[in-house]
């Protein structure tokens, strides 16, 4: 067990070194879209609108936190692994080292978690300056960390499946981009027709937005959604294990 943790850290260490060297650029680029969303939707479009008993700005902030956590974790874990596997080819070196596949998957996912947390916390600080009435609780942190894990595993999964860099970009625009807008981030699901609502509850980001929003707006916490997030995380993790096993054929 101790060995496995050490191995996981060893795998993570590589990507931490890279992050340490490029953290300013990484942080700046990952904040561009959430801040733009905040300005365009929160201030621009949503001024004077009230949703679920809060101002639109207060409503949209947890949604943007969820999508920031998603995109940063997904690309933080996925893009680097994709490059390591197909371009630098140094992932083979990890595969040939005496490190278990589980340590490898978790280690590669953890960099996504780290980057997801850095981006979303940085965005939260900006958001808090703009809207100091937001409330937080430990449950917010739990939901945020779990969200990062879900999408980091998803990123590793996608990167292990991808046969080219193009595959990864396609995956991003077909899966991640629609989720950005539809996952309960910018509008309240309660306004939608029943059929559409069911579809949107199938995507993981919806549950993350619901959990985060419930905390900041002081609504009852959707425990079921938290459970669904955990379920998605486990599913993506198992997906990684299966793909990695299959790839050594």
């Amino acid at each position, binding site marked *: 067990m101790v*060995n496995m943790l*050490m*191995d996981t850290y*060893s*795998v993570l*260490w*590589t990507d931490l*070194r*890279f992050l340490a*060297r490029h953290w300013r650029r990484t942080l700046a680029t990952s904040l561009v879209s959430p801040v733009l969303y905040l300005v365009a939707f929160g201030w621009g479009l949503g001024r004077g609108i009230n949703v679920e008993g809060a101002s639109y700005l207060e409503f949209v902030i947890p949604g943007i936190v969820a999508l920031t956590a998603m995109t940063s974790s997904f690309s933080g874990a996925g893009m680097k692994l994709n490059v*390591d596997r197909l371009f*630098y*080819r*140094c992932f*083979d*070196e*990890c*595969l*040939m*080292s*005496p*490190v*278990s596949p589980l340590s490898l998957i978790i280690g590669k996912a953890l960099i996504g978690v780290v980057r997801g947390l850095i981006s979303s916390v940085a965005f939260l600080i900006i958001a808090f300056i703009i809207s100091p009435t937001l409330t937080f609780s430990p449950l917010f942190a739990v939901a945020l960390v779990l969200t990062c894990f879900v999408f980091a595993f998803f990123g590793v999964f996608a990167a292990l499946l991808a046969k080219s860099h193009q595959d990864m970009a396609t995956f991003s625009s077909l899966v991640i981009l629609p989720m950005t807008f539809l996952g309960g981030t910018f509008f309240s699901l309660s306004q939608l027709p029943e059929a559409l609502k069911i579809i949107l509850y199938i995507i993981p980001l919806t549950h993350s937005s619901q959990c985060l929003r419930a905390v900041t707006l002081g609504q009852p916490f959707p425990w079921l959604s938290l459970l669904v997030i955990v379920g998605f995380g486990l599913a993506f993790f198992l997906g990684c294990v299966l793909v990695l096993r299959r790839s*050594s*054929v």
Partner: protein
Amino acid sequence: MITIENLTKVYGEVKAVEDLNLEIRPGEIFGFLGPNGAGKTTTIRILTTLTKPTSGHARINGFDVLREPLKVKRAIGVVQQHISLDRDLSVRENMEVHARLHHLKSSERRQRITELLDYVELEDESNRIVTDLSGGMKRRLMIARALIHRPKLLFLDEPTVGLDAQTRRRLWELIRRMNIDGTTVLLTTHYIEEAEALCGRVGIIHQGHLIALGSPLELRQRLGLVTVETLSNNKDTHYIYFPDRTAATSYAQGLPPEVKTIIVRESNLEDVFVELTGRKVGDD
């Protein structure tokens, strides 16, 4: 050191390796020689646990590659054909990643990295980012990295592909030195002179089959140590092999006058390969 029994690997319809049997002894430099696509890299990938064989067995240091992959991984160092370094990290960081993945303690890590960078003459480059290194430096770094956990067996897949003559010679020297220091080396190459310069024994692989095995000298002796090359009518080149120079010269002198170009030279592994397969080693 390596025991390969009836090893077969099939990709779809293609038999990349078929019924390979081979024993590689501790302390030797063994070379797989063959054209691109002959099955050399597939064999290496199976031996280094990256690919599963379709059937047959391979054992390294007594450990089965399929059943005890972790023990195999601890015993081997691998230098792949393509550059497989993290190009965003520095020379030292690339070494450190590998040392960590192989469970070296922190004090040992530092000492071993310094020692090895010194060994491959990269000590002055230790803080440079890998992207900025020359091809030869990257190769040497890969070799240093593969040695970090003191493997008993080192795999070198086409170690000098794409390098200039001088760099190649430096690498050969390095490989010989590692071998003298106790590392068994298995290398693949499609350069004849590389196999002749380095390998104690050579296995010639063609279309997934091992078609000849022995020391370069033995293989050349089997063919005939001296080759007479003749070119008649300026189009057909013929090769005839003789056990010694006397026999070759007397044959050459007896040739009819219309044969204009006659070359008498030492046979090499290329001749062995061409005779066995009807193709040149460099052909795809």
